[in-house]
């Protein structure tokens, strides 16, 4: 066991997969000589050469489409979006080609590609660099969407994403790169479509993902002192959602709070609520509550930025409130 930072866990995943499969390659802005803006591809250029760790010009839509063409013809590209917000410029290629092309081609082609990179609200990075794109992409058919949250799941999920024969959007969080954890020495992969039960409990189900997992964990410490026993689930897979795990938890707790960094309108939480109503309405003892970010471009000012995203105290209060209403 060795303690590893999250960015390094991702790097290990890429290195291991490039070592075992020579059709795996990385492309993106500053991934090569520079080693990646968050050093996820550090030194891989020296190890694998300039074609396998390809520095691209600043042309997001075109290099994303290039990855689609490479994937259709037998390679396994990993795109690094220097900041996931930039991928809005590649929306055409991600939605029309990466997402839909297997279907519209009637199964002629498969598109094994990973699009990964940092997203989420950081520390005063400004609106364009503080986006949460998962809601925009969840409506695109044919994409798998995954969000990692710990060094352990980051490494195992990225390896699984690289091996998957479909396009996978792999969301990392800009504030989690320096998270530390001891990782096993043996090789492991983590399934892309399984939620992770972070903390079993009986009083309420808290559904969360990415950085909000850690805000929830903080809130839980306060809740435990008050004798409340929440079940915390890290969704991991945002598409498809793991309703086996979610459903089993609801049948146990009958109460659900969603904590997300996603914007409220049309967000991941909105989709989950609709699906829970479809599937488990009779199991619910209370309406599902969602704690989402504010529907605004992320402000630069630190105080306003903090107010934009959900804080541990708010989570604590919301859970207390819901449990207090218990009949």
């Amino acid at each position, binding site marked *: 066991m060795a303690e590893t930072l999250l960015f390094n866990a991702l790097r290990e995943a890429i290195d291991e997969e490039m070592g075992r499969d*020579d*059709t795996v*390659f990385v492309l993106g802005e500053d991934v090569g000589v520079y080693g990646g803006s968050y050093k996820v591809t550090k030194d891989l250029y020296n190890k694998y*050469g300039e*074609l*396998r760790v390809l520095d*691209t*010009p600043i*042309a997001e*839509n*075109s*290099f*994303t*489409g*290039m*990855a*689609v*063409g*490479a*994937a*259709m*013809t*037998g*390679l396994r*590209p990993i795109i690094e979006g220097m900041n996931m917000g930039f991928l809005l410029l590649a929306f*055409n*290629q991600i939605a*029309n*080609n990466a997402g839909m*092309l*297997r*279907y*519209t*081609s*009637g*199964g*002629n*082609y*498969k*598109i*094994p590609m990973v699009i990964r990179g940092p997203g989420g609200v950081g520390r005063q990075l400004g609106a364009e660099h503080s986006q949460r794109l998962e809601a925009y992409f969840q409506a695109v*058919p*044919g994409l*798998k969407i995954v969000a990692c949250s710990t060094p352990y799941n980051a490494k195992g999920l990225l390896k699984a994403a690289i091996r998957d*024969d*479909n396009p996978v959007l792999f969301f990392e969080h800009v504030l989690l790169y320096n998270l530390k954890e001891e990782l096993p020495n043996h090789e492991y992969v983590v399934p892309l479509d399984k939620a992770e039960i972070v903390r079993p409990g009986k009083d309420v189900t808290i559904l969360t993902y990415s950085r909000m997992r850690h805000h929830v964990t903080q809130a839980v410490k306060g809740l435990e002192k008050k004798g409340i026993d929440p079940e915390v689930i890290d969704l991991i897979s945002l598409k498809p959602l793991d309703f086996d795990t979610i459903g089993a938890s609801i049948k146990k707790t009958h109460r659900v709070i969603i904590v997300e960094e996603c914007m409220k309108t049309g967000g991941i939480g909105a989709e989950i609520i609709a699906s829970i109503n479809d599937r488990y309405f009779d199991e619910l003892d209370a309406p599902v509550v969602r704690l989402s970010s504010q529907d605004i471009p992320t402000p630069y000012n630190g105080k306003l930025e903090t107010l934009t995203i959900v804080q541990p105290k708010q989570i604590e209060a919301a859970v207390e409130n819901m449990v207090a209403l218990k009949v």
Partner: protein
Amino acid sequence: MVQERTLPQFHAPAAQIAPEEGLRLYEDMILGRFFEDKCAEMYYRGKMFGFVHLYNGQEAVSSGVIKSLRSDDYVCSTYRDHVHALSAGVPAKNVMAELFGKETGCSKGRGGSMHLFSSEHNMLGGFAFIGEGIPVALGAAFQSRYRRDALGDSNADQVTACFFGDGTSNNGQFFECLNMAALWKLPILFVVENNKWAIGMAHERATSQPEIYKKAAVFGMPGVEVDGMDVMAVREVAQQAVARARAGEGPTLIEALTYRFRGHSLADPDELRSKAEKEAWLARDPIKRFEGYLLEQNLADEGTLKEVRDRIQTRIDDALTFAEESPEPSPDDLYKYIFADE
């Protein structure tokens, strides 16, 4: 009507071609023309739906370029993709069945007119948004170079032909991809089919530099203009570009000056193009012109050409029967093909 561009001169009689090769090109052009005529008939009879963009008039480009490729090379098309698919070897019956939305279609009835795919024939697709196929073609070309230079596969000398229209040459993906192709010396042919009109937008109204082939110079890439109504001329420049690409010398931009004889799509009222312009280009029909060439050069006689036309007509009739009699996709398979492991 804007002054017509002076077409580059090409002396076909001086070019060498074997009679079998001449007939192969002729057959391919006839196949394209007859197929599209049948599509128009089926569309107007209410048997074919959606947007159908026909290729009539541009056959010399598809045949001249794609018939200069090997079967393991790649073709990437646009929304005007039927004839590119046929030239690439996708059977007419499977293309026709696709346009009928049938399970036997080359995209299993899920794609339709603008989304023709065949992995078997390295047909990378028809792409319905302007320019979105160019990056995909770039990826196929990158893959050839990657296999050759990163994986040491000396057989990886496949070339990709990427087609698009004059309207696309104003799109960012065009410039971004020319840059990358030149930067990495990718084995790709960028083939602009300049048919002068982007639906109702005349090329000169949208383009500050109407001579698209000149845009190659900025990227240090050879740019060639060619008479896109002359299959021998297109073939000549395509062969040179393919040889360059295969030798690892990088991309070429080919601007073929051509014309669509029909409207943008079968739903286009085609009110803007002048009669004089249309007639001037109709008089330069690439098929009639190539027939004249084959006869003059004694490469074929009228009987042989008629045999080709009869044979192709039969193939189109068979394709139509096949398409009409093929089953529709099963409703049970609505979700099939979303993901690779399903």
